[in-house]
């Protein structure tokens, strides 16, 4: 499963942190800064898998694991997989149930979905709409398991939810209007999806 999804910028400022495996807040913060310092040291052109002897992913049960490298590898196959886009690092912390290359594709899906919902997403969008980022993520991953990988379906769901939000906020009637019961998002791409992502995104077939 996916333990955590993190987004931070090239200065280590977190833009999104979502832990699907519950960890104490301080451990979360230290993990983020540890991962950031390891990733930011890595030169360009190296692989997208972060593997360092210092990196110990804490499990909720016991605070820290054995320092012994060999022992750690066998019982705990946690991997840190990241991608670097412009000023942002997208980091997924996953366990052995996930395919390494598959997660790389999934990060791409996540970024493209963000791009569709923000239209040419940039760091500022993530800063000021951190709730929206969470909503997009919740359409892709739920409880650490992958919910959907089809970008069209994801953005349809995101749009449906945002329409519902708008309708609910606009209506004076506290009861939810029944029109919302209509399943939203029939290919409701908000324009620009065909040419938006394209500066730094390559389409992939997931």
């Amino acid at each position, binding site marked *: *499963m996916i333990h955590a999804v993190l987004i931070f910028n090239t200065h280590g*400022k*977190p833009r999104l*942190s979502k832990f*699907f495996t*519950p960890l104490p*807040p301080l451990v979360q913060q230290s993990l983020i800064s540890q991962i950031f310092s390891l990733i930011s040291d890595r*030169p360009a*052109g*190296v*692989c*997208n*898998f*972060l*593997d*360092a*002897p*210092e990196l110990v992913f804490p499990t909720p049960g016991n605070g820290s694991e054995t320092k012994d*490298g060999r022992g750690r*590898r066998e019982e705990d196959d946690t991997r840190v997989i990241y991608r670097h886009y412009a000023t942002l690092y997208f980091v997924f912390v996953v366990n*052995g*149930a996930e*395919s*390494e*290359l*598959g997660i*790389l*594709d*999934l990060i791409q899906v996540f970024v493209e979905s963000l791009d569709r919902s923000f239209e040419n997403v940039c760091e500022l969008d993530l*800063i*000021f709409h*951190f*709730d929206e980022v969470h*909503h997009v993520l*919740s359409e892709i991953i*739920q*409880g650490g*398991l*992958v*919910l*959907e*990988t*089809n970008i069209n379906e994801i953005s349809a*769901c995101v749009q*449906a*939810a945002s329409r*519902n*939000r708008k*309708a*609910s*906020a606009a209506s004076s009637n*506290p009861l*939810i209007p*029944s029109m*919302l*019961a*209509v*399943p939203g998002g029939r290919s409701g791409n908000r324009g620009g999806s065909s040419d938006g992502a394209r500066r730094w995104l390559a389409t992939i*077939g*997931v």
Partner: protein
Amino acid sequence: MFERTLQDLIRGLRAHKASSKAQEDAFIAEAMGEIREELRGKDMALKAEGVLKMCYLMMLYPIPPPPGFAFHVVEVMSSPRYHLKQLGYLAAPMAFSGDTEEVVLTVNGIKKDLMSPHIPLPPLPLTALPHLLSLSPSLSTTLHPDLLHLLTHSSPRIRKRAVLCLLPCWEAFPEGLREGFPRLRERLQDDDQGVVGATVGVVMELARRQGGKNYLPLAPELFGILTGSSNNWMLIKVVKLFAILTPLETRLVRKLLPPITSLISNTSAISLLYECVRTCIVGGMLDPDRAEGEALARVCVEKLGGYLRDEGGDQNLRYIALLAMVKIIPTHPQMVAEYQEEVMQSLDDPDVSIRMRALELVTSMVDRDNLQNIVDQLLTHLAPPESNTSDLPSAVASLTAIANQLSLTASKDPATLSTSVSLSPAYRLLLTQRLLSIIAHDTYVNVMDFEWVISVLVDVAYVSHVDIGTEVRRLVLDVVGRVRTIRSFAVGVLEKVIGDEDLRERGRDGTGEDGLIEAAVWVCGEYASELSSPLSAISSLLSPILHLSSPSLITLSLQAVAKVFAFYIAKVSSRWTAEQHEETKNLVASMKQGLKPFLTHSDIEVQERAVEICQLTSFVEADLAAHHTPPETATRNGGVEDIPELQGGFETEGEMDLVDPPYPKSLFLFQPLFTSHELNAVANKAQEAVRVPDGLDLDVDIVPGGGFDADLEIDEDEGEGSGAEKGVLDLGEGGGKGMEELRRVLREQEKRGKKKGKGRKMLGEIGSVEEREEKERRRAARKAKHKDDPYYLYDKREDDAADVDEIPIVQLDDAELGTEDVISTLTKSKSKTKSKKKATPPEFDRTGELPEGAAAAELNKRPPAPSRTASGLAGVDLINSNPVPTRGSSTRFEEYKVDENDQVEGEKGDETPMDQNEEADVPVSASQEIEVVKVKRKKKGEKKKKEKVLEG
């Protein structure tokens, strides 16, 4: 009141980012105050905004939420407005933790939202549920029926979310799995691909957590997905899932081979291709016994090797290729060996991730031929890139020819090193650990040249700069102890090490050097006879900076000084002259001088040894002072080489009158203290193998009853007889009739307890006898297997009973212990491999024999334990529990498919054995249905039998 939205808050934070930390903190504190106000207020919209702002702050700073935050989140969650509710559910995972009691308040609200007829509503609680369910088992129990109900919801979006919620729900409420499993199974055949994908993900995670046994019955559905789906994500998951299932059911392999092979050859997605290859490896499909297995292995290794060779190409592929090759090594080492060059190149990769993988792979690739190569290359990584041999301390530079060769290779390829590999201390430590473990692997099975090993160990200590001292020390001592022929070489090298003041200085920082020094000090003391110059050894052992070292090193040094001194003065006695007399006097004086600072050392161990040795030296000093060398006797007896028997010193005093030796007799005071028996490597299990001497019964109390009057413990070994009398409770006397009665009852209970104890013990004995038989059988099998293997040293005798005595143990002189002198004589053969090894236990027992009784019982106990404790889910056994679930899951794997009309089908082709059917390309289902009936019939029969038993 001024209302600040999330946007305002973020803008404010950014505005204060440039200013001082104090200002930023002040701003945050102000914002927190506002949030607290908003949370407490009545306006739900404001409250929701406050919750959102709090979540944002919590993400950025380690701020604890205000008290009652969770309660406010519950309020927002229960808001009827969609957009507020969504914020509430968004905040819930952040607000609730294990000790948050508010979770219980949410139950009804969540239930209502889940069951809402409005399609947009149920996804909201479902998003937050996985976190909440994992917090509260009671929530899982309550919501489980609702989740199952949602599995058949009309909207696929809700169905797939509900499926994903089942995992945490069952994790907290394992019993739910039994009821929900058939429903989960139905979802595997859902019309919507998204739902199927989610279900596969859940099954995958379940199978990983509790073992795949329960999920083997799902194989037909999964197989259908594998052949029918075109969604790569789902295919990857299914393929990975099969990697867990195939080891449990080997027949699956045959079925899976065609589709996986076609995927490997047809797919354009490298991720899927890689996972197929990995499943082939991990899932045990490359069984060399099968023809196609060998061919498939070749294909897999070639694919991986292709990734590895892809220079300048995708680094990710190189990484995962290394990852997968580690898995294939145990079965096909020779295929991977073809890519040794590429793997070694990866060790030099600038990317530390790739280096770590390559290191792991290399560790398992080592064999007799490439050991030196690989270790040498690893060593070059440890040596600082800019330095070459000349930078290394002189002791290393002046090592043997081998060491020089080694250093030369190190200096030769700075080209590979020039890529500034960032060697973090943690990586260096890992590298060094791996390097040492490669050498020591399986008791030096790959080592051809122990001189080389010693030089490598010395080099490692010099260049590693990491805290590896203990390991280096252990290896040096181990090698020197085991390999007798290496000792003189080792002493020669280590003599230089103890003379290296520079190294000592560095060693005090807790880096790798101190371990080497400690080992060197001990070796030079113990094998003082090999020293080229005992005098200089003594002076470097008692170096003026010794007092700066750790107490343990000082202790070792003092002891070593005494040993070297003992050897030296015993040696000079044979050619005793007036000059020698003077020289020895000086030596003793300087030794006493050197010992002086330690006489008042703060460490008690150091002080004791110093005083001890100093006093003994004083004795020698006095004797030397009183002794006058008779010149004529010196020439007369000079040729006599015989060193008096070890018990020289005091015991020869009686003979003093008969032959007066030309040297002071105190010269032999020291030696017997250290040389009475040789120290050898102790076999792994030697302690357990020490024979209990006749007449010693370890189970008998030395002081009966443990010295206590009223022994409450049950004395099993004494039996009912005398022990029972002794063990009786002292219940006192008197106190009237009532007390008498009470005492009688107590005594009876006591006796009963004893009997029970006895019975239990008998059972235990039976168990251990069986275990012993089993062990004997296994040992015989192992022996037969290795009989012709030259690398296993067995003695010719067949009786195992003798082998207890064969294990070399440290000889104790006390004859009462009754151990014979069986230290196996070293084979003097020149072949440099195993025969060099000293003290190889005659039985090279790799599995590590355990002592009978306790240990064996422990072994038997262990296996089921983890599966119980691993997670609550693991305790659920769908296969062995019959009642509730579908017929499919209740029986064995034979049922690939449970068909409604299987009874009819079965009557037609009952007799066809399954294996024959599977040979050909007969569709899966047909044969499976046939099999089902067979199983069922058996089951029925069993049931009948059971009923009969019940009746009878």
